């Protein structure tokens, strides 16, 4: 079917923001990289590399070449801060070349390309909350149209207290659940709430070759979609995109036959901007495969009942709107179920 691709491998790293005084979660190093090599990289690049390498390893594609697409929103805020620390306090002669070169938007893509030896081409998209899914849809179309033999696509975001403070001033991510979101208590936390978080998620895509596995198809116009789905995963997250997201969901749910389960992944995963929709894709793939979610996955205690439902989900719809009203969507299915 046009635009449908096989998800050969995936890798995801996510963590809700560290509490004050708590160290940031350690990011697993990619294969073949030691900590000395990794120290040059900003946190965002480390997250991206860690997730990309996992996806590549799972796909069994070492030695193969691929097109590379990466999405992000705020970029390397840590290196940006470091560069400004020196620039503002001590002047340009103290500016850090590593913070500059390692902090540019395409640094994560360059790091992945160099580490995995990918040379077919690539680009970094900078966008808002739906940007990750936009990159996935672009990648899927390139593979499905045979423009690229395979594609490694993903997104990354590092947590920034500065950005959180800016958004808090605008009333976004207030650490209180807005009325339209079911927001369970986070483990170990004092109370319910939404948080900005960080993470990375990558998928290795190949042409649909009828092998058993999960398939992905981008949707041109999610508002007009009316196919059968078991689960809809929404990108609503307590932020400025929610108005557009809920409008989309209202229209979708009116069109969809049956009563699909509705999941708000960000209620537990937090808001990771460009990464959010791809973390939802990661979650969907694991549900479709019937996998147990790893214990470290923030959703683990909450989704176990869903994964144990008598009816194994076979189709999951991912939707994401951003703060400008742009929407992206895609459909996942397992094995040979046609979509």
């Amino acid at each position, binding site marked *: 079917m046009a635009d449908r691709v096989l998800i050969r491998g995936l890798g995801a790293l996510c963590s809700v923001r560290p509490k004050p005084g708590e160290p940031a979660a350690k990011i697993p190093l990619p294969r073949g990289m030691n900590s000395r090599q990794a120290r040059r990289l900003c946190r965002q690049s480390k997250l991206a590399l860690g997730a990309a390498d996992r996806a590549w390893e799972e796909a069994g594609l070492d030695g193969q070449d691929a097109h590379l697409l990466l999405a992000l929103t705020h970029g390397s805020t840590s290196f940006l801060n470091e560069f400004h620390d020196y620039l503002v306090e001590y002047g340009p002669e103290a500016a850090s070349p590593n913070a500059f*070169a*390692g902090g540019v938007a395409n*640094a994560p*893509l360059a790091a992945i390309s160099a580490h995995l030896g990918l040379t077919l081409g690539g680009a970094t998209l900078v966008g808002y909350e739906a940007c990750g899914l936009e990159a996935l849809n672009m990648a899927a179309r390139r593979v499905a149209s045979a423009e690229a033999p395979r594609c490694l696509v993903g997104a990354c975001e590092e947590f920034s207290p500065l950005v959180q403070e800016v958004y808090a001033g605008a009333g976004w991510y207030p650490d209180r659940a807005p009325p339209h979101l079911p927001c369970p208590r986070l483990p170990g936390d004092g109370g319910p709430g939404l948080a900005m978080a960080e993470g990375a998620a990558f998928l290795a895509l190949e042409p649909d070759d009828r092998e058993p596995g999960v398939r992905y198809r981008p949707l041109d116009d999610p508002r007009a979609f009316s196919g059968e789905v078991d689960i809809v995963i929404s990108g609503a997250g307590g932020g400025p995109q929610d108005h557009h997201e809920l409008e989309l969901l209202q229209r979708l749910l009116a069109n969809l036959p049956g009563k699909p389960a509705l999941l708000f992944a960000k209620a537990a995963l937090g808001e990771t901007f460009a990464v959010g929709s791809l973390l939802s894709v990661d979650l969907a793939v694991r549900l479709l495969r019937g996998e147990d979610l790893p214990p470290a996955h923030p959703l683990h205690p909450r989704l176990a009942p869903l994964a144990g439902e008598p009816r194994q989900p076979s189709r999951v719809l991912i939707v994401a709107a951003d703060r400008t009203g742009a929407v992206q969507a895609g459909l996942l299915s397992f094995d040979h179920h046609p979509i």
Partner: protein
Amino acid sequence: MKNAGVDSAVVVTGVGVISALGRGYGRHVEAVRNAESGLVSLNLFNGTPPDPVLCGRVPGDILNPDLEATASHRATSLLNMALADALADAGLAGDAAVEADLLVGTTLGNMHGGTLYHRQLRSGGEPDPGLVRDFLPCAPAHSAAREAGLTGSVRTVASACGSASAAIGQALRRLRQGRAKRVVAGGFEALSPYCVAGFASLKLIASGPCRPLDAGRDGLNPGEAAALLVLETEDEARRRGARPLGRLSGYGEALEAYHQTRADPDGAGVAAALGRCLAMADAAPEQVSCLHLHGTATRANDISEHAACRAVWGEDLASLPVCSTKPMTGHTFGAAGALGAIFSLITLDQGVAPGTLNLTDPDPALAGFNAAAGPREIPAPEHVASVALGFGGESYALCLSRAKREGGHG
């Protein structure tokens, strides 16, 4: 709605360009013929090194020259102006809503606004959060699209100095696949102390006017610009009676997987990008009439491009006129690829290749490059290619080809 038109030919129907040379396609044609440079000496750090820095700043009669006063919106302003000019040039101005996507590249957006925020934060004052929200590289494109009444999708690409080329390439894909009938594509970049300090920290700022391909070259001059092409399918252009300025016939991209910042001295990425570009354009290397190099005048960049061109053209390289326009405009980073495409259009349209200014002592290590300090006539150009390279080995090539039309662009 998906439009019909798989593999449609794509033409350029409008241009909007603002750089250190001034505003408008005609201004840039004039600058090419007169071998002008728009570089000016600026003190960006209160006179401390690397000041003074030769920069390609947009003239003060077009945009307030004060970087501090325009910090929060300089990039957005440049993009807004170029977009208005491009739409007007394409005969699309005056419509309340314009059916077009906007696909642009940039590296730093309104970065100086971000620097102001950090200064405010460190001075103990109350920093303006709007500076952080507006400095995201994707913010100017959304703002500009709203301002211009564009109804299509908006996308920002940040592939370092190849950003604009990548954006144009993605636009070409969308149009050829029938996913859009019109895309305004290109790039924009505003001067910022952050950017200049960054390149200075890498020892890549030239001590004077940059000298691409010259034995005495020692780095780049930072610049700012906004450069946009209105791209449409040939059918759509014909339907509304638009005059094509040229055909966007080819695009190629590659990654070098070599180093975080330095180009591969063997030029493997650029060679691959050029090969893919010319294959798409269905143009053999010997059919290329002129090549616009990335030509930043850093030691490594020019060596890498030379190696790539030798790989693609072999001994025929000496017959191919090449040029770099960085001494005219400065290196405009996120806009560079689109500026290169517009200079390629000028070559195609006017039959003149820009001079590589300040080239007085060609580097023997770059033997075979057919470059000249002054502008040269290019008789009956059919295909003109341009190259852009970014940090991390991102390599891009574009090919513009003659469109079937009469007369030139005013």
